[in-house]
């Protein structure tokens, strides 16, 4: 084989390879280009849905528990399942709704609307809230009642359903915050349907001031009220004043009397030095006399207060809590003086296990030692 022929063959081979590889390169680049284009489109599509104007979010809380009381059999309980729906349109409107599912003693499930409001963010310092909302008076009902927040498995005496602290309202409310004197303040002002006075025909007395947030104002007289909160000197200490006034009617079955005066006054505070969380509040609901009443001409006062101190043993997950409270009504049998001591284990900041011992006495009715052991596992999601 002569060398010239050999050289020629090598050259031809090299040229051939080069031309093959350039065809390969061309198709590769085209393919790659197509893939990049497709990816670009996908990224654009994904980004399109990253910031939609409408946002939807499901939150809520649930708890399971066990109660061993002195005067009744011990029991497991499915405390609450409370999903919260958030729908938000831009930074203008939000719908917040919380449903409360509970299982009763016969095994039936009950559902109620804890709150459902349409909120309009009017400006940086004010939101308009319309619908059924938790009473903005005081702090327990609106800020502490969810079980993952409440450091004790029970509500303070007098702060449960239809006791001394108003629960909810159906109406409209303006609320927000603003800078004041170098600090910050927050406020809530509302007009609502108000409560009714539940007549107990068997005992011949007004049994309770019912404040579930009534859907129809039968007496046509509204209640106006609100709360003002202020930090001194910063958010470590908050002090709140609550007041409401209007009319409430006595209700006997489906009969309603003429409305009588109805007032609520309250003070509350929160103080959080270091690992301590100390809070307390006083609330009083009262209704006036009605000379023309065929049921009860006298007025009545339902009042309650508590002070609670909790301490986190950081960096461990343990927390200790004590709470003392009193509940006073016109009926000695309903009154309570209550101590609670508890230990909590924080599996996470929103998952809390509680072991409480609750001492309940009622010297007004000559009863002592109606104590309870409460266990609870609560999860806020």
């Amino acid at each position, binding site marked *: 084989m002569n060398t010239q022929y050999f050289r020629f063959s090598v050259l031809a081979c090299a040229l051939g390879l080069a031309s093959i590889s350039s065809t390969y390169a061309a198709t590769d680049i085209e393919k790659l280009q197509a893939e990049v284009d497709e990816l670009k489109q996908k990224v654009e599509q994904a980004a399109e849905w990253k910031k939609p104007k409408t946002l939807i979010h499901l939150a809520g809380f649930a708890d399971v528990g066990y109660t061993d009381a002195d005067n009744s059999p011990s029991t497991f309980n499915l405390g609450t399942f409370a999903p919260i729906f958030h729908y938000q349109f831009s930074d203008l409107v939000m719908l917040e709704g919380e449903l409360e599912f509970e299982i009763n003693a016969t095994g039936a499930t009950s559902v109620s609307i804890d709150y459902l409001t349409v909120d309009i963010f009017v400006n940086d*310092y004010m939101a308009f809230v319309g619908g059924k909302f938790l009473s903005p008076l005081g702090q327990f009902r609106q800020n502490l009642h969810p079980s993952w927040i409440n450091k004790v498995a029970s509500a303070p005496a007098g702060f449960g359903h239809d006791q001394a602290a108003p629960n909810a309202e159906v109406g409209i409310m303006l609320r927000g915050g603003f800078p004041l004197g170098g600090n910050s303040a927050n406020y809530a002002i509302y*007009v609502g349907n108000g409560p009714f006075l539940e007549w107990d025909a068997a005992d011949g007395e007004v049994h309770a001031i019912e404040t579930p947030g009534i859907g129809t104002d039968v007496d046509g007289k509204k209640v106006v009220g609100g709360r003002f909160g202020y930090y001194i000197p910063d958010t470590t200490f908050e002090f709140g004043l609550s007041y409401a006034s209007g009319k409430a009617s006595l209700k006997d079955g489906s009969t309603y009397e003429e409305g009588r005066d109805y007032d609520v006054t309250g003070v509350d505070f929160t103080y959080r030095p270091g690992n301590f969380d100390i809070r307390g509040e006083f609330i009083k609901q009262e209704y006036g006399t009605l000379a023309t009443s065929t049921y009860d001409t006298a007025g009545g006062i339902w009042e309650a207060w508590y002070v609670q101190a909790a301490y986190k043993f950081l960096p461990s997950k343990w927390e200790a809590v004590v709470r003392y409270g009193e509940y006073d009504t016109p009926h000695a049998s309903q009154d309570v003086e209550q101590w609670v001591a508890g230990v909590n284990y924080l599996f996470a900041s929103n998952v809390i296990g509680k072991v409480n011992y609750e001492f309940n006495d009622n010297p007004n009715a000559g009863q002592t030692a109606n104590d309870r052991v409460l266990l609870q596992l609560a999860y806020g999601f």
Partner: protein
Amino acid sequence: MLIKKTTLTALLSSVMFTAGMSSVVAEQETVGDFTRGAKAWSQNCIRCHNVRDPKELRDDQWITTTFHMRIRAGLTGQEVRDIIAFLQQSN
């Protein structure tokens, strides 16, 4: 008559309040600031409950949650934008 009066007073005061505030609103900033947000978060988000981990929720979920908390906690619009900026960059 009492109803009319209360309704009227409520409406009137809200209109006056809104009008008064809108002059402030005209000068407001609109973007959230991470540093201010971190401070507002550490001061406010522990007032009522244990602090919730910024890593717990997605960016969009922090928007709905912080607006929900704005109503509960009486935060200003600017505090909310700052806190959202902080939470979205910390999750």
